[in-house]
């Protein structure tokens, strides 16, 4: 009897799923219709992520939730290959239930119709108020009745610097970008580079433009507009081009052993990076333990209080998941519960996207690698200074690829960062058109 009932139930569920998938003229309603708990039997969910040691965090959930078991699969970071896998899996109809997607990639997945709208899932709608406003804005696209992922972490940016080297050379910690240039000259004289310009990871540049007030994309509901040449972005590009031309920054390819080496050997003295960068430095430059410190990001105007954001992910539920309710239950636990957030911070230095996250005991402790400085205080402050209205475009993977081709050319002396952004502009518009995504020219 029970069996028959469950078969009936699932088939009606499948029917509603079919019908909601059928009327795809109105995007607002799709997916929001069916989000009820599965009846009977334990549920197994697949979850793909590249957070270091995520397995340990998921194990805590699995141990206390015998009926909702989560299987983790790890992979390279999103643009490093996992997004491509997701797109292929969606095309083939075998995507996992849950996946890690950075905020900048959410529009790309939504435009490919790859995400389940979780607005109707009770665990998600109940948790809305717990998240920092701008992160919620990223997953809801500023729309009502739309939630395409659960915010996981934020990447407020600050200035990591080698305290010992700055002290030894008697250079003041720069608080404005103008001072940063001046410091760069002194660092160069002392035989180092103030930083390494990220030639192929455009996300850092996006964070810098975000701080300056740049807006690359806008979506008025009927059309996208693309603008890589607004005043703020141009200002940032001109600034860094100047440092590159004067050879005040090194241009080692990021995320390589060579790059780690530059920090480990003390060739690069600072890094304007996101909170999770704390982990990148400690794992990439282990010999420099205790020598680093964190200060707020340099400002464009003296006394200013603005910060950029670099990265930050959401946990999204893919279209076609049979258990959106359970998946969203897990996603909410992973990203709001104190035990999960503490673990994520311990294992991967993630900075929670929840408002109460800043008061986690783990985040108020000093960090040994940073000379016992309470570095998360700096990031908590930065988190409140991130402009909430930065919009990402729907083809970021290719935008990044084109921009990074241009940035790479610029650091090898062919063209400038401005040229690269111009190219990114035309290629992005072309790409949108080739996918019939409406775009204003």
């Amino acid at each position: 009897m029970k069996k028959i009932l469950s078969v009936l139930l699932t088939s009606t569920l499948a029917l509603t799923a079919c019908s909601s998938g059928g009327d795809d003229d109105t995007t607002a309603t799709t997916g929001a219709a069916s989000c009820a708990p599965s009846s009977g039997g334990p549920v197994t969910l697949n979850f793909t992520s590249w957070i270091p040691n995520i397995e340990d965090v998921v194990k805590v959930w699995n141990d206390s939730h015998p009926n909702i078991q989560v299987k983790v699969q790890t992979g390279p970071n999103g643009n490093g290959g996992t997004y491509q896998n997701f797109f292929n899996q969606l095309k083939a109809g075998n995507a996992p239930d849950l996946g890690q997607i950075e905020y900048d990639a959410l529009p790309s997945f939504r435009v490919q119709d790859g995400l389940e709208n979780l607005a109707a899932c009770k665990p998600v709608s109940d948790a809305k108020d717990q998240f920092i406003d701008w992160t919620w804005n990223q997953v809801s696209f500023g729309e009502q009745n739309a939630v395409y992922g659960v915010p996981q972490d934020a990447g407020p940016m600050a200035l990591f610097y080698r305290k010992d080297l700055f002290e030894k050379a008697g250079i003041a910690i720069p608080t404005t970008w103008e001072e940063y240039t001046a410091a760069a000259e002194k660092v160069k004289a002392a035989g180092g580079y103030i930083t390494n310009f990220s030639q192929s990871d455009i996300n850092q540049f996006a964070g810098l433009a975000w701080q300056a007030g740049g807006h690359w994309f806008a979506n008025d509901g009927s059309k996208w507009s693309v603008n890589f040449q607004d005043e703020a972005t141009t200002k940032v590009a001109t600034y860094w081009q100047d440092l590159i031309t004067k050879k005040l920054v090194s241009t080692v390819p990021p995320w390589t052993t060579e790059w780690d080496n530059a920090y480990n050997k003390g060739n690069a003295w600072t890094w304007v990076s996101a909170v999770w960068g704390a982990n990148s430095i400690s794992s990439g430059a282990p010999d420099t333990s205790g020598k680093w410190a964190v200060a707020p990001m340099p400002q464009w105007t003296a006394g200013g209080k603005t910060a950029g954001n670099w990265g930050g992910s959401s946990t999204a539920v893919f279209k076609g998941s049979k258990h959106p309710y359970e998946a969203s239950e897990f996603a909410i636990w992973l990203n709001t519960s104190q035990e999960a957030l503490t673990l994520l911070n311990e294992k991967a230095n993630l900075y929670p996207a929840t408002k109460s996250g800043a008061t986690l005991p783990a985040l108020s402790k000093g960090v040994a690698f940073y000379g016992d400085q309470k570095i998360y205080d700096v990031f908590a402050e930065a988190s409140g200074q991130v402009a909430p209205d930065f919009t990402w475009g729907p083809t970021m993977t290719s935008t990044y690829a084109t921009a990074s081709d241009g940035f790479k050319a610029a650091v090898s002396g062919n063209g400038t960062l401005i040229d690269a952004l111009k190219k990114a502009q035309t290629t992005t518009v072309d790409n949108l058109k080739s996918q019939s995504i409406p775009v204003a020219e």
Partner: protein
Amino acid sequence: MTKKKHLLVFILPFGLLFAAFYVAPIGYAIKQSLYKVTRTGTFGPAHEVFGGLEQYQRVFENGPFWESVGRVLLFGLVQVPVMLGLALLLALLLDSGLVKGRRFFRLAFFVPYAVPGVVAAIMWGFLYSPNLSPFTAVTKNWDLLSADLVLWAMANVVTWVYVGYNMLIIYSALLAIPQEVYEAAKIDGAGPLRTAWSIKIPLVMPAIVLTTVFSIIGTLQLLAEPQVFRTFSSAVSSTYTPNLTVYSTSSIPNFNLAAAFSVVLALATFALSFTFLKFTQRGADK
């Protein structure tokens, strides 16, 4: 009739796999390349509709793609003769009896081929990187990862990996030459060099032609090396080789355009290999 049945039994395993993993994907790619996506509104769901040759028009208008085709052709023009010349030389040396420890060298030359292409590329990438290389005397003076040299730095990797493989094919052809031919040459007073030039090389020509065709195909399909070198070098773009263009396009994801790129690339490879075969066959007929 029974003979035909027997034939079928022997062909079936190959035929099935060939159909499933070769013919079907090609058919699917061709189908994909003829479709395009339409949607309404900024986040409207996509519909695939028949688009005729629209994607192909995009392919032919795509400057970076044709640049990348030119790049691999230049690469092949230099790298394939160098690699096969080396392979031939090594095969002749092994066959000449001048070398002691023939078995050892045969294996030693072949070993790089056993290293997976990606691993080989990473290893060479480290050797080339100015700050990591143990050969600082070289990397300080020449930036092997710069725009001017990186193509040839990759050619070196490809050569290193495939010389031994090609040598083995040529060497086994050399072993198949009947002993009487050598005896006849000896009686006519031919020395080792003369024998190599007038007997061995002409007789292994079919093997050389075969390895050339393989190499042409391999060159046009370069992917692993540039993909790995992208992380090391600022000179390798996301459209550096045709296959890398296909890869980047499919990660947009624009599967239809990526399929069209692939079909054009396959046709180009086919045309080039076929032309080469025709060309060498005409030479042989003379």
